[in-house]
């Protein structure tokens, strides 16, 4: 536990110092403020489509920091130094998942409030949006991290990571945006299931990817 905390707090500190934490927030707000300009100031239309727009923005925002999640530390030898201290690669990825979500999930949920105001969303939709993001952002974080571990050793890994992650993120987008128009709560449960699965496999798959890439 102590080890996990040490690793996660370092990762969070690194993200904070590289000012990477503002990027997803700024991106979400930018999209939310541009969207009404693009589709016109039709209140009904904004209210109907705004929630889905926030989900698309959240998904794309999660891909922004992917190229600096793993690759810089791999190149700097940090991952090797951790391995020779007997710290499992799974542990490293789990700590990074926690740090990545903390640096991206909650800020995005906070940024959703002004975004919702820009899109004229009503109270119930905002609640569903926040609940969906609370459940869905760990999955988005896990997916981004998983793709980052897979592409860490490659050139132009950023673009490749986006191409790899987007098809895998489609279920999250369907269930996430589905929660908004669905009163039964089924979409929320599917979202939770997808999220649980991604969060559970990412430390193991990511750890294996780091080990396989070690040379």
């Amino acid at each position: 536990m102590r080890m996990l905390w040490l690793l996660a707090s370092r990762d969070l500190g690194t993200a904070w110092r590289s000012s990477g934490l503002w990027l997803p927030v700024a991106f979400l707000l930018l999209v939310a403020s541009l969207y009404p300009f693009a589709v016109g100031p039709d209140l009904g239309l904004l209210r109907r489509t705004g929630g889905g727009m926030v989900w698309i923005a959240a998904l794309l925002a999660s891909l922004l920091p992917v190229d600096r999640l793993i690759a810089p530390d791999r190149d700097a030898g940090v991952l090797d130094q951790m391995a020779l201290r007997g710290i499992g690669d799974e542990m490293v990825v789990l700590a990074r998942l926690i740090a990545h979500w903390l640096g991206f999930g909650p800020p995005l949920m906070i940024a959703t409030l002004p975004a919702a105001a820009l899109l004229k969303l009503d109270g119930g939709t905002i609640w569903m949006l926040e609940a969906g993001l609370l459940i869905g952002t760990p999955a988005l974080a896990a997916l981004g991290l998983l793709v980052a571990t897979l592409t860490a050793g490659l050139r132009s890994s950023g673009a490749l990571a986006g191409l790899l992650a987007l098809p895998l993120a489609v279920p999250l987008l369907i269930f996430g945006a589905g929660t908004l128009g669905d009163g039964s709560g089924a979409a929320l449960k599917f979202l939770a299931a997808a999220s649980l699965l991604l969060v559970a496999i990412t430390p193991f798959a990511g750890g294996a990817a780091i080990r396989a890439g070690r040379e």
Partner: protein
Amino acid sequence: MSRAALALSDVACLRGGRILFRGVNLTLDAGASALLTGPNGVGKSSLLRLCAGLLPAFSGTMERHGAVALADERLTLDSELSLARALHFWARLDRSAENAVAAALEAMALTRLSDVPVRMLSTGQRKRAMLARVIASGAPIWLLDEPGNGLDSASLDLLGSAVSAHLAGGGIVVTASHQPLPLGAPVVLSLADHLPDPAEWDA
């Protein structure tokens, strides 16, 4: 701390589909040191990574008792942090003593620079910072890859005294270098004597 030991028996290393060296034997007990020599590209760094357990041996076995600290060509200290804080991160992971970082900075004559961000350090200072990271780790086995590169003669003396203090305390040091270093009386292992037969190159 149980006695540190490092033993390689009949080790061969395969990298990029090519055998780098083979038939390497090395046995080091507490207080012993080894110097790896040989021309560029002969596999000195690979042998160090192999000793660290980061690279599997193609054949043969590597046995190691005790934690290991590696100083390769990468500094591995967060460049935005101050030197002392960057070293503290690794020292905390290693569960080193509270004053281990201060003692390591002192041993490498870096105490004056402990508040300076790592990215501002010069080449020689970075090398000394890396050695301070190794010293602060408290690991009994040190693997040093070209530790003398970029060091002036005063710093080389610091390195020499740090190494001899470590050896006197029952540690093990394996150094790869092609320049003379004040390392006491190491076992010299010339990797040029362990090149594979030309016929094996395509193995």
